[in-house]
């Protein structure tokens, strides 16, 4: 199963082109997980997450100042290099200033006939956020209808909601197997499962998940799980880092990433007003730090997950220049320390110097295992 997930990620462009040919429907690129994919599925449009290629994004210099994170520049670089020429439009659900620039620069400099920005509110802890987002989603639905020339009915929305909820639920079931003393999947595999879901058709992805869930109980990784780690922080699709860390005698048993648990943790609760139901999901979901104030709900979520998956140590990731996650590092590390989970901070960039990181990871693992036998 995981080889298919991996292939889907590595050949994401070929997959989307083949899907378009087969279905003769449109595909839309999106930047952040605050885009309501339920409505896109309702309009029979394939949402495809735009992520970077981890190569220096020099082409973006005239459009985004290099002091903004590598993710937003790397995403724009993919568009400028023509690697997403097959998508029919782009959509962004408001999150941080960084990805907003990738969206605007794409809109301004890469020909596309549909560019829509949904003002998902930041005040998600306010009671007025859901009614506000419901009206924003109504405008978004209308814009899709005008663009595709097809009405989006309640049945379509139900189909979209069902596809998303089912996919999320199945992935949560797979995550449960990571609580075992000897987890049935590695951290790398979990990331590949969620990442591939963000770039492929949900129903197709869910079928694979159902087969995976049949096989998991008997699956044996025959590897020593070693130290139980958790990875928390900025958007992270760096699979090389995950692979390398898990080769040093540790396993990522849990994550708090928008490319991981945060993407699958909340479902749409059915309601007569479908848009209200979808809006409630995106307001009440585990928030991105850029929307998480005045209370630290995401930090509390990370602490809860660390307990539930009995984590021994956590790697706290900040994409260099990422302010929302950078601001939360000290409160997050302190909260985890109070429940006995040691942490170590990492600064990620477009390319990652594995030499430096290997020393930090191994030394961190040594503090967790204590090299007891050598003293």
């Amino acid at each position: 199963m995981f080889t298919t997930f991996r292939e889907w990620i590595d050949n994401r462009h070929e997959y989307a082109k083949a899907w378009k040919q087969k279905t003769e429907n449109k595909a839309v690129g999106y930047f952040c997980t605050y885009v309501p994919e339920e409505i896109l599925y309702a309009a029979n449009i394939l949402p495809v997450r735009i992520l970077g290629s981890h190569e220096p994004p020099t082409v973006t210099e005239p459009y985004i100042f290099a002091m903004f994170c590598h993710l937003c520049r790397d995403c724009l670089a993919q568009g400028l290099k023509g690697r997403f020429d097959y998508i029919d439009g782009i959509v962004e659900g408001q999150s941080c200033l960084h990805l907003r620039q990738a969206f605007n620069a794409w809109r301004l400099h890469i020909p596309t006939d549909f560019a829509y920005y949904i003002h998902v509110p930041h005040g998600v802890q306010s009671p007025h956020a859901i009614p506000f987002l419901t009206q924003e989603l109504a405008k978004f639905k209308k814009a899709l209808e005008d663009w595709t020339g097809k009405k989006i009915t309640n049945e379509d929305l139900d189909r979209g909601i069902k596809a998303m909820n089912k996919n999320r639920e199945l992935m949560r079931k797979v995550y449960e197997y990571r609580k075992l003393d000897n987890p049935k999947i590695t951290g790398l595999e979990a990331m590949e499962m969620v990442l591939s879901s963000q770039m492929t058709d949900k129903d197709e992805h869910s079928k694979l998940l159902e087969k995976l869930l049949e096989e998991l109980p008997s699956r044996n990784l025959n590897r020593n799980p070693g130290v139980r780690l958790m990875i928390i922080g900025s958007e992270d699709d760096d699979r090389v880092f995950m692979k390398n860390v898990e080769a040093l005698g540790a396993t990522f048993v849990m994550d708090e990433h928008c490319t991981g648990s945060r993407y699958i943790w909340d479902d749409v609760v059915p309601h007569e007003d479908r848009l209200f139901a979808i809006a409630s999901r995106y307001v009440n979901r585990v928030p991105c730090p850029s929307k998480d104030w005045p209370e630290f709900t995401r930090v509390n979520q990370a602490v809860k997950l660390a307990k539930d998956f009995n984590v021994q140590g956590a790697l706290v990731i900040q994409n260099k220049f990422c302010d929302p996650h950078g601001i939360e590092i000290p409160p997050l590390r302190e909260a985890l320390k109070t429940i006995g989970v040691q942490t170590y901070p990492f600064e990620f960039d477009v390319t990652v110097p594995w030499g430096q990181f290997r020393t930090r990871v191994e030394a961190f693992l040594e503090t967790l295992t204590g090299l007891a036998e050598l003293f």
Partner: protein
Amino acid sequence: MITAGVDVGAKYVKTVLLEDGKNVLTRANGIVGFDVWKSATEVFEKALLNAGLKRDQIAQVVATGMGRKAIQKKPPINPGEIVPEVIADAKGAYHLIPTAKTIIDVGAEEGRGVKVGENGKVKDFVINERCAAGAGTFIETMARALEVGVKDMGPLALKATKAIPMNAQCCVFAESEVVTLIHSKVSKEDIAKAIHDAMAGRIASMVLRLGVEKDVVLIGGMARNPGFLPPLKKELNTEILVPENPEYVGALGAALLALETEGQK
């Protein structure tokens, strides 16, 4: 009429003696020491010696480069005027290649991009910010880490088999990755290529801010490094012309400007 151009760079002083704005009588260079005035004077006098001339036979001198202020209003050079590097680069490169529209000058410390209008006039320019400084010296430091001569770094890079993407935002990040490569059994050729690709990436991102218009001309000390040109062409995806004696183009431009100021008087 003989004029002179003195380009006091971050690391080297370059001097050009020019006859009637057409043929170059001699070129001389030397390392910049603490006493900038002394180093510039030594190189200037070396040029006079090579050409068998005296100071009073030089009608006009114009100085340029980072250290130009150190020789202002002081004998023996006593330049009639001092001009920023950007203006001297434009003049010199335009003289050598009149179709030049975008000039890239990469020296030891600084990198510059100049957009040139008609008759070599500066339309727009960009100079690397400090984060992107130190192109030349970075290659020197990394040559030391690889136990390779600085001159051999370029040719070594051309023999590489694999391209390894490396951070192109600043030398400190790039250096951390070079150390990683050294300790993960990557061949010296591939490491040298990664270093040159990173430097080219940094200079390209600066020039892209300016916009690339054909013909593109590369000048400055780094133009002599054969490993630097191919990745720069790839990043800017354009052909790049390199004139003869690329590190003297600034000094040549200054000598041409000296002719103009002498003409106006």
